[in-house]
C-alpha cells in the first residue's frame, strides 16, 4: 500500500505540473433533483420495525430542502394498510406487529409522500420462515507473530450451515466479539468486521449444500479479555443482497476507483426496502 500511495502522489504531482489550465466545463451538467432516501430492513421475526428517511444532496442544482419527518409513510399488504408515525427518539418511522404485522411469505408495498408532494414507492416479498440448519461453529486459536508488539492471539471462526434446498437463498453474516473490559461487570458485544465490510453469500451452484464462512480476529487488546464470539446468520432477500453487494464495493474517495452505483429498489428515490430473518450462534471460550 505504501508503494501505491507513493506512485499515486507522484502521478498526481506530474498531472498537476502538466496542468495547463483550469476552467469551467463547457458542458451541460446533469440537473438532478433532491431525492428521498429510504432505509427499510424489516424482519418477520422481530416485533418492532423502522423505516428511515432522509434526503439526497444534489451536486448541480438548488432543489430546495424540505422536511421529511412529516412525510406520509404508508405500508400496505393484501388490502390492508397502515400509516406509520415518525418517532423522534428513533429518528425513523416506527411501527410494531400489533399495529401492522410483518409476516412470512407476503407482498408489502411502501408509499411515501413528502410535504412537497414528492412520492416514492417500493415493493418486497418477505422470505419464507424456513431457516438453514447450523452444522458447525468452530473457533481455532493460533499464536502469531506481530510486527508491533509481542506475539498475539489470532482467533479463526468458521461457521458451516446447510442451505435450504430448492429456493434461491442469499445470506449475510456478521461476527461479534464478547468482550470483558478489565474492571467492568458487563460483557460488551463488539463487531469484528472492518467498517464498511459486509460478508455476503449466495447459494449459486450450491443449492441445498453445506455453505461456510470464516472470520478472523487478531487479539492485541491490552485492557480487555475476549470471552467469546457470536455469529449472526441472516437469510436476506434479493434487495438486501443487491444493496449490500454494491455497498461493499463502495471505495470512498479513491479517484482511480471505478464508480460504484448503489443498488436501489425505491422508485424515484434511493435506498432499499428489504427484509431478513436471522439466527444468532454464540460460543463462550
Amino acid at each position, binding site marked *: 500500500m505504501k508503494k501505491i500511495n507513493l506512485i499515486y502522489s507522484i502521478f498526481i504531482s506530474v498531472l498537476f505540473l502538466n496542468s495547463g489550465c483550469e476552467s469551467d*466545463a463547457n458542458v451541460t451538467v446533469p440537473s438532478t433533483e433532491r431525492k428521498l432516501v*429510504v432505509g427499510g430492513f424489516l424482519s418477520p421475526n422481530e416485533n418492532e420495525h423502522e423505516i428511515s428517511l432522509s434526503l439526497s444532496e444534489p451536486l448541480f442544482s438548488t432543489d430546495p430542502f424540505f422536511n421529511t419527518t412529516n412525510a406520509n409513510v404508508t405500508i400496505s399488504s393484501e388490502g390492508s394498510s397502515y400509516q406509520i408515525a415518525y418517532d423522534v427518539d428513533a429518528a425513523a418511522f416506527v411501527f410494531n406487529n400489533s399495529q401492522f404485522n410483518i409476516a412470512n411469505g407476503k407482498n408489502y408495498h411502501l408509499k411515501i409522500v413528502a410535504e412537497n408532494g414528492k412520492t416514492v414507492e417500493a415493493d418486497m416479498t418477505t422470505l419464507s420462515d424456513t431457516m438453514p440448519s447450523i452444522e458447525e461453529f468452530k473457533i481455532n486459536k493460533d499464536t502469531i507473530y506481530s510486527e508491533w508488539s509481542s506475539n498475539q492471539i489470532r482467533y479463526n471462526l468458521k461457521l458451516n450451515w446447510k442451505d435450504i434446498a430448492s429456493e434461491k437463498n442469499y445470506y449475510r453474516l456478521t461476527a461479534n466479539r464478547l468482550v470483558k473490559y478489565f474492571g467492568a461487570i458487563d460483557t460488551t458485544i463488539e463487531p469484528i468486521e472492518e467498517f464498511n465490510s459486509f460478508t455476503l453469500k449466495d447459494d449459486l451452484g450450491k443449492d441445498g449444500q453445506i455453505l461456510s464462512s470464516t472470520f478472523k480476529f487478531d487479539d492485541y487488546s491490552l485492557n480487555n479479555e475476549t470471552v467469546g464470539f457470536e455469529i449472526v446468520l441472516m437469510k436476506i432477500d434479493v434487495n438486501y443482497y443487491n444493496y449490500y453487494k454494491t455497498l461493499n464495493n463502495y471505495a470512498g474517495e479513491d479517484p482511480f476507483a471505478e464508480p460504484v452505483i448503489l443498488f436501489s429498489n425505491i422508485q424515484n428515490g434511493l435506498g432499499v426496502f428489504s427484509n431478513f430473518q436471522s439466527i444468532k450462534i454464540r460460543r463462550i471460550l
Partner: protein
Amino acid sequence: MNKRKILLIALFLVGTITPSLAQNHILSGFVKEKNSGELLIGAGIYIPQLKNGITTNNYGYYAISIPSDTLDVMFSMVGYQKQVFRIALKKDITLNVDLLSGTAIKEVVVTDDRMEKIADDPQMSIVRIPIEQIKKIPMLFGEKDVLKTIQLMPGVQKGSEGNAGLYVRGGGPDQNLIILDDAPVYNAFHLFGFFSLFNGDALKSVDLYKGGFPARFGGRLSSVLEMNMKDGNKQEAKAEFGIGLLSTKFTVEAPIKKNKSSFLISGRRTYIDALTLPFQTSDNKGGYFFYDFNAKLNYEISQKDRIYLSGYFGRDKFYANAFESTNYQSTFSLFWGNATGTLRWNHLYSNRLFANTSIIFSNYQFNIQNKETDHSDFFEIKLFSGIRDFTIKHDLDYALHPNHTLKMGISLQQHRFTPSGTTINSSSIGDLNSNNINNIDALESGLYVEDNLKIGQRFKANTGIRFANFLVQGKTYTAIEPRLSASYLIKEDLSVKASFASMNQFIHLLSSTGTGLPTDLWVPSTAKVKPQQSNQIALGLAKDFSDKNLTFSIENFYKKSDRVVAYKDGASFLNIDVVDENDKIVWEDNLTAGQGWSYGTEFLLQRSKGPFSGWIGYTLSWTQLQFDEINFGKKYFARYDRRHDVSVVGIYEIDKEKTFSFTWVYGTGNAITLPKGDFLAPSHNPGSNNNWSNIYATEYGAKNDFRMEAYHRFDFGLQFHKQLKRGIRTFEFSVYNAYNHRNPYFYYISKNTSGTQNVLKKISLFPALPSFTWTYKF
C-alpha cells in the same frame, strides 16, 4: 466449424491449383533500396500479362511461381522509382532489384502500378504509414511519434489528451499486439503515456492491422502493430542528429563490410532533469528522464543465409534523493522500461521456400527502490513487477503456384509474469530481510498456415487458420482461429472487400486508469480468469483514383468480444494488493468478465504521392460493454465509445526547402460516470444497539451516462530544409493546439466564485504549445 466443412474448404482451395506445377518457374530475389542496400518490406512485384503480383516479405524477399513465358515484371513501392524488366522465363530465375528512393531523385515519380492500388489488395483493415510522413506531421513538443500518427487514422482512437495509447475499433489498449522486430513490447509508453517508445529514425516499416488479421498473428483481440527496424546502410556511413525541446536524439548507420554487413544505432534521451538541476538545493535532488536505445546488426552469410541481431532498451526514471546530513541519506527511485532482443536467421531452402527462425527475448519491469541510511544502519526495500518472455518461432514462405503463396509457422513463447516481488535488506532488523517474489509461468504456442490465393482475374484472398494453446498452472486453453480477408474486383480500380477473424487473448492488463501508468500489470489467464475471445467481420469498398493519386475506402465492421475483463465496481489499482497475507492471489477477485460489441463505419480518403499528400479520415462507431457485475448487468457505452472521430492530415512540399504540414482532429467526448449528488446510505446493524446507521455515499446515474466535451485541436508545422556542404539541415517550427482549445483532461467538482453552488471544472493539459526542433542528416 465441423470437420466436413474444413475438408470441403480444403478441397476447394486445392482445386484452384489447376495448371500443372511443372509448367511453372520461380522468379525470386530481394528488393533493396539502391543507395543504402536496405531491404524493402512490402515492395510490389507485378506481372501485367498475368494480372498477378505479390509483395516482398519482412526481409525484402519475394518468390512467385509463374508460367514459362516472356513477361514484363514491374517492381515498385511508394516513394521509389518504378523498374520494369522483360524476362524470358524458361527456368527458375533469381532477380535482385535495387529501387531508387524518391528522395534521391528530383521529384517523386508518379507510378501507375496495380500493386499500389488498394482495390487490388486482398488485405483490408490495414494502416500503412510511410516513416517519412511520420517525420513531417506536427506533434506535441515536436517529438515525432509513431503511435500518435496512427491515432490519426480512422478506426484508431486515442484515450485522453496527449496519450499515445491506441483504442482500435473499440478495443482497449491491452488488446493491441505491439511487436518490434518480432519481439512483443508490453509497455509502449514513456512519461505516463504521453510519448511512445518508438523512435521513428530507427524504423523501416509500421503496419497496423485493425481486422482481417493474417493467421501469422495471434494473441490479442483488437489490433496488431508490426514494426520493423532498419537494417543499417550497407553502402556508406550515414548519421542523423536532432535536438528538440524535450530530448536529443541520434542515429548512426554504416556498413561493416560493404554490401555484406551493416549496423544501426539509434538513441534518444530527455533532459528535463538536467534543465531543472540549477533550481535544486544541494541536499534535495530529484528529477525525471527517459531514454531509449535501438541497435541492429546484420550479416549476409551467403545468398541463401542472412542473420540479424536487433534490440531495444529503454528506461523511464523518477528519482528523489535527500542528504540531510553526512550521516543520514535517503534515496528513492521509481523506474520502468522494456528490453527486447531478436536474433533472426533467414534461410532459403530453395527459391520457392524462404525460412526465418527467430529467437526473441522481451522483458518489461517496473521497480521502486527506497533506501534510508542512518550512520551505519540502513533499510532498503525494492518492489517490482513485470513480464518476461522467451520465444522461438519458425516461419516459412512457400511459392506454391501462381495462384497460391503459402505462409506457415510455429511459435513457442514462455511467459514469466511477476505481478509482485519484494526484497528487503536491513542492517538492524535482521528478521525483516526477505526475498518474496510471486512468479507465474505460462507457455503460449501457435501454429498457423496462410494461403494468399487468387481465383480468376478478380478474386483474391488471404485465408488461414491458427491453432493457439496456452498452458498455465496445469490448466490448458486451446483455440482454433479461422481467418479470411478477400477482395473482388468489380472494375479495374474498384473492389469489394470482406474479412473475418477469430482471435483469442490469453493475457490481460490490469489497469483502471487508462492512462498508461507503469503500475498496469500484465497477468495470465488462470482457471478463474478465462481467455478473452473475439470475432470480427468487416465489409468494405476500395476505390483508386489513379489520375488524382487518390485512394478511397469505406469499411463497415462488427466485432463481438466475449470474456473481456474489467475491474469490478469500486476496484482500483490503489487497493489491489496482488496477494493477500496467505499468498492467495486477490487480483482475480477484483476482475469480472463480460461481453463487448463494437461496430461502425470508417471512411478514408488518402493521397500518398505528390507534393500535397495526406488524408481525411472519419469514423462513425459504437462500443458497448456488458458485465453481470457492473451497472446491474445492463449494457453501457465504453469510456472510449466515440460516435464521431475525424482527422484531417495534410503535408505540402512547398518547394525543395520548405514543407508545411497540419492536422485537425475532432472526436466525440468520452463517456464517463459523473457524480450527481451525495446521500447517506442507510445501513443495517443487526444485533447492535443502533439498528441502523448511515454511510456517506455518492449518487450516480447509470454507468458512463455522461459525455465529456468534444475534443478538437489544430496543429501545424513548418520545416525548413537546407542542403549544406555535407548533409541536410532541417529546422522545424510547430504549434500544437494552435487555436488554444481547452480540451478536458478530467473534470472535478468545485464551488463557484461566491462559494454558493457546485460547478463542474475541467483541467486542460496543453494550451497552444510552440516547439522547435533541429536535425542534421549527413
